């Protein structure tokens, strides 16, 4: 059981850094009016998401606190404690979604309010999107390399390990990271 919890913890850690980004998901052409529509739509979506996060975060924070005090055994108490804390964090994240923008918004408002012509805006947008896509591609391959490396190290450790319990753990971590590396590679 402890080995499994350790495996889960290591897997969480190996994935922790990837969950923090709000990536630009615009895949259309570099036409300013289309991009404008996309950004405004995204902002509405993020406001809605922010509201849902704040409401559900409040429910989780209150429910988690009540559940923590009501339950008696350690696993349930742990999950309720996590729920309560994550609920509070989600309220903050929801507020961020609702009231603040992201880098794309900053770029959008800077260009949209400028005196540039539509042609110039399109050109600027093309450069911005090209740079964004390049960075997104780099991030993707860094993830592939990271997970492939973790997979290789764990599979090697598994091949060298005598304890069957630890060997299973290493094979699981190796296999899970190999699947992640493959999933990011296309």
């Amino acid at each position, binding site marked *: 059981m402890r080995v499994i919890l350790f*495996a889960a913890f290591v897997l969480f850690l190996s994935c922790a850094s990837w969950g*923090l980004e709000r990536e630009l998901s615009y895949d259309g052409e570099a036409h300013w009016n289309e991009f404008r529509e996309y950004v405004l739509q995204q902002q509405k979506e993020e406001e809605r998401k922010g509201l849902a996060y704040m409401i*559900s*975060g409040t429910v989780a924070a209150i429910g988690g606190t009540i559940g923590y005090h009501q339950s008696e055994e350690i*696993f349930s108490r742990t999950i309720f404690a996590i729920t309560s804390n*994550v609920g509070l964090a989600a309220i903050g994240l929801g507020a961020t979604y609702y009231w603040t923008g992201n880098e794309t918004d900053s770029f959008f408002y800077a260009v949209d309010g400028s005196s540039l012509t539509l042609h110039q805006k399109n050109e600027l947008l093309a450069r911005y999107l090209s740079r964004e896509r390049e960075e997104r591609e780099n991030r993707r391959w860094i993830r592939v390399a990271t997970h492939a490396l973790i997979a290789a190290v764990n599979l090697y450790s598994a091949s060298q390990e005598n304890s069957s319990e630890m060997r299973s753990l290493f*094979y699981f971590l190796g*296999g899970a990271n190999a699947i992640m590396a493959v999933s990011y590679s296309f």
Partner: protein
Amino acid sequence: MFIRIFLLSLFICSLAWGETLPTAVRDGSTRFLSRSLGSACYTLDSVQRGLPCNPAVTAKERARRFDADFFAGTQAEYLKEAENLLHGNSDEAQVARFFSHRESIEAEVSLEASFQAPKWGVSIEPYRLVAVSRFENPSLPMVDLVIAEEQSVKGQIASYIHDNFYAGLQARYTHVRFIGDYFALSEAMAGERDDLFSAQELDLIYLEPGFLYAWEDLPWQPQISAVLAHWGVSSHKTEQYPIQPTGLLGASLRPVVPLGLLELGIQFELASETRNVRDAFRAALAYQLGILQAVLSVSDSDHSAGFLLAYKSFTTGLSYWDQNQNRGVFIQLGVTL
């Protein structure tokens, strides 16, 4: 005394079989889904952990997703003792401690990783431990016990067929090492312990087709599903892991609500152990808002309630399950990428 022993021997001889593992425990679905939604997970697809229960749903997926899940019952000490018993690492005192839990218990722990892409998905579950015990007759305690350690691999493929109709197929391979028997508690404490707890190995292969008719363009997105589950072969016949195909028919819809996503469903499950129509029906509900997803499932014999909390890439959850004398609390920890 002699009469008592004689009657006990007769009783044991007449009932000398091991418990068949409940269908829900033999189910190949991702553990949180099958424990929280029961068979309704074959129709409700708004709760997403691991591969969908109905393989045809894979054809509806638009994005790729990687999930790693740890799912465990809260009876950690019981599971640890069960694992020792399965591996023959228990001495007399440990066996006595294991059977001091004079209650019916259904416990499990599982670790699973899955990857899903549009139209296909794969999943590995390198470790799953299941322990099911039932006590009868307090004056002369009889125990029905199954302890099993499983390793599973499954794959799903699915495709759009025609006009809102999807079809899919799940192939599942499970290797099981288990002990299972029905015996008097006094036997477990006596010298026959080694015979009672000698482990068997079993290989199971299942092919489980699923179908889905989904009106995704309608506001409430109704859908009808049909699945043939547990259809397969085993390396040899056992009472604990019988090959009993189960037919599942279900319907669900997503009523429009001002905020969040609500899904309601009803499931009809027909297996050889289904004794009357009332046993076959199950109703379920799932509601998602922001980071929270609540699930509720009710049938005539059991009910369960649970929640998932998904924050960024991480998921935690709890599931409460109750069936006659059995009840359990299960925790879920997961990563989604």
